[in-house]
C-alpha cells in the first residue's frame, strides 16, 4: 500500500513539476546567475563580475526614473481604483430607496454590474490599442474630437496625451493618462468584488444599526467599510501587482516604448530596452532580480500591514 502511494504521488507530480521547473524555475535561476556576469546576450563570452551590475543600478539615472514611476503607479493605481470601486459599490448597494426591508440597492444594479465589468474581460492589448485611438493627438481622437466640438480645445493646440512629458503635480502628464486607463479598466472588477462582499454581510447587522438610528452614510462608514477591510486589503495587494505590470500599456501606447524622452519608463520597459536594444543581458537580469526582490518585499509588507483578525459571521 505504501508503495502504491509513492508511485501515485510521483506519477501525478512528474509532469506538472517537470514543466514548471523547465519553463519557470530554471529561467529564473539562470537569470539570477546571469545577473552576476557581463553577458551581452549574443556572444558566448561572459565574465563573472560579482555584484557590479547591482551597484550600477544605484547610479543609473534611467533606473531611478523608472523606479519613481513604478512607485507612482504603485500608490495611485490601487488608491484611485479602490476609491472609485468602493464609491460605485456604495451607490449600487445603498443608493436605492428605503423601506421596511431596510435600504435597497438602486434599480437596475444587475445591469450596471454587467456593464462595469466589461473592461475586465478585454485583453490589455485590446484596451491599449483602443485607447491609442481615443487618445489621438488630433481631431480624429475621441477625446480631442469631442473637446474641439464643444470648443474647449482649439484645433491647433490639441491635448497631446502620450506625447506630453510635461510634469503635472511633479509627474509627467503621460503617466497620468496611463493611470486613467488603468483605473478605467480596473474599477468595474473591484466594484463587483466589493459588491459581493457587501452582500455577504448579514442583513441583521444593518437592521440593528437602523434600529439604533443610523442613516445610510453612517451605516456605510461605520459598518460596511470596516467589515470590508479584508476584501479591500486583498484588492490592494492585487492592484499592486497590476501597477507593477503597466508594461503592456507602455509598450503599445507610448512613443518608442517608454517615451517621450523616457518620461514613461517603468522597470519592465527599461529591462526590455537594456536586454534587447542595448544588448546588455547581464545587467538586464540584475534589474529583473532587483524587481523581483522589490515585489516580494512589497507583497510581504502589504500582507503584514493589512493582516488583522478575521471577522466571522
Amino acid at each position, binding site marked *: 500500500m505504501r508503495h502504491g*502511494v509513492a508511485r*501515485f504521488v510521483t506519477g501525478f507530480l512528474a509532469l506538472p513539476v517537470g*514543466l514548471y521547473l523547465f519553463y519557470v524555475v530554471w529561467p529564473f535561476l539562470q537569470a539570477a546567475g546571469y545577473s552576476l556576469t557581463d553577458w551581452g546576450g549574443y556572444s558566448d563570452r561572459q565574465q563573472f563580475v560579482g555584484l557590479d551590475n547591482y551597484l550600477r543600478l544605484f547610479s543609473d539615472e534611467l533606473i531611478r526614473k523608472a523606479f519613481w514611476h513604478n512607485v507612482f503607479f504603485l500608490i495611485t493605481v490601487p488608491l484611485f481604483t479602490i476609491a472609485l470601486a468602493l464609491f460605485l459599490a456604495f451607490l449600487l448597494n445603498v443608493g436605492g430607496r428605503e423601506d421596511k426591508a431596510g435600504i435597497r440597492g438602486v434599480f437596475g444594479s444587475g445591469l450596471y454590474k454587467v456593464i462595469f465589468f466589461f473592461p*475586465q*474581460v478585454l485583453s490589455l*492589448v485590446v484596451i491599449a490599442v483602443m485607447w491609442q485611438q481615443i487618445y489621438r493627438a488630433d481631431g480624429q481622437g475621441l477625446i480631442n474630437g469631442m473637446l474641439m466640438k464643444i470648443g474647449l480645445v482649439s484645433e491647433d493646440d490639441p491635448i497631446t496625451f502620450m506625447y506630453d512629458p510635461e510634469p503635472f503635480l511633479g509627474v509627467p502628464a503621460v503617466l497620468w493618462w496611463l493611470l486613467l486607463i488603468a483605473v*478605467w479598466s480596473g474599477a468595474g472588477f473591484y466594484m463587483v468584488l466589493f459588491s459581493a462582499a457587501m452582500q455577504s454581510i448579514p442583513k441583521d447587522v444593518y437592521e440593528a444599526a437602523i434600529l439604533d438610528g443610523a442613516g445610510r452614510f453612517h451605516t456605510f462608514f461605520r459598518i460596511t467599510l470596516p467589515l470590508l477591510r479584508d476584501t479591500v486589503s486583498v484588492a490592494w495587494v492585487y492592484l499592486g501587482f497590476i501597477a507593477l505590470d503597466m508594461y503592456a500599456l507602455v509598450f503599445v501606447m507610448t512613443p518608442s516604448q517608454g517615451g517621450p524622452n523616457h518620461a514613461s519608463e517603468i522597470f519592465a520597459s527599461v529591462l526590455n530596452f537594456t536586454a534587447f536594444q542595448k544588448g546588455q543581458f547581464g545587467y538586464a537580469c540584475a534589474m529583473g532580480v532587483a524587481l523581483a526582490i522589490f*515585489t516580494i518585499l512589497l507583497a510581504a509588507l502589504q500582507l503584514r500591514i493589512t493582516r488583522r483578525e478575521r471577522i466571522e459571521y
Partner: protein
Amino acid sequence: MSTVTHTPGGLAGPDQTPPPARTPPQRAAVGGGRAGARFFNGFSHLFLAVWAIMVVYPLLWVVMSALKTDSEVIRKPLSLIPERLQWDNFARAWTEGHIGSFFLNTILVLTGSVFLTMLLGSMAAYVLARYEFRGNRLIYYMFLSGLTLPIYLAAVPLFKGVYNTGVVLPFLGPNSHLMLILVYVAWSLSFTVFFMHSFFRTLPTAIAEAGMVDGASHSRLFFSVMLPMAKPGLISIGIFNVLGQWNQWYLPTLLMQSVAGEPKNQVISQGLIELSVNQGYRSDWSGLFAGVTMAMLPVLIVYIVFQRQVQSGLTAGVSK
C-alpha cells in the same frame, strides 16, 4: 438586488389613489428625510449612468468606426452611425491583417493549453493537498513563488532555453504551437495549483475514505470522485485561465516571432499590436478598428452569456 415588487391589485385597481407614504418617522429624521433619500437615489443613478456610458461609449465607438470608410473615419471621427456599413473592413483585417489566422492559432493554442493546465494543475494540487510525503511543502512553495516573480525577469533565459530546445527538437522551438502551449501551462500552474489546493482541502474526507474502502485505486478515486466534486472550483479557475491565456501578450511576443519564410503562428494579441504599428504607415484606420472589434466581441459575447459564472469565477480567484 433591487426588485421593486408591485402587488397586482395595486396596479389594476380602478381608483388610482397614491399609496400612503410609509415612512417610519424616526428613520426619516436621521436619514436626512424623504427628499434627501430621493435626491440621493437620483444622484446614484446619475453617477452610475455616467460611468456606464464612459465604459460603453468607447467600445461602441470602436465597433461603429470599424463599419465606416477610411475617409469617414477622418472626416467624421465622432459619429456613431456609419453612412454605409463597410463589412469589407472586417474581410480586409481578417485576411490582409492576418487576424483570421491569428484567431485560429489562438483557439488552437488555448484548446490545448487550458485543458492541460486544468488537468496537470488539479493533479498536482490534489496530491499536494491530500497526501503527506517528504518535500510536499517544498513543491507547494515552489509553485507559490511563481506568483510573485515578474515574468520579465525570466524573459532572456526563457527565450534562450526555448531556442536551444528548438535546435534539437524543432517542434518545441520558437514559433511553435506546442511550445507555446507548454509555456502557457507552466506559467499558469502557479495560480491553478494555489487555487485548487485550497479547494481540495475543503472537500470532505469521508467520501474519499469510503471510496478507498470500496477498493478504488488512488488515481481512480481522483478522476471519478474528487474531480467531479471539485467542479465549482474547476469552473472558476477554468474561466480565469481562458481569459488569462487569451489575453496573454508578453510570452507570445517573446517566443512567437516568425523568421522570414516560416509560417505565421502568432496569436491574436500579436496580430493587434502588428495592426496598430502598421496602421501608422498604411493608415488603414477602419481595418484597425475592425481588428480590435474582432478581438473584442467574442470575449464580450461569451461574457454576456455567462456573466454570472465569469464574475464569480474571476472574483473567487481574488478572494481565495
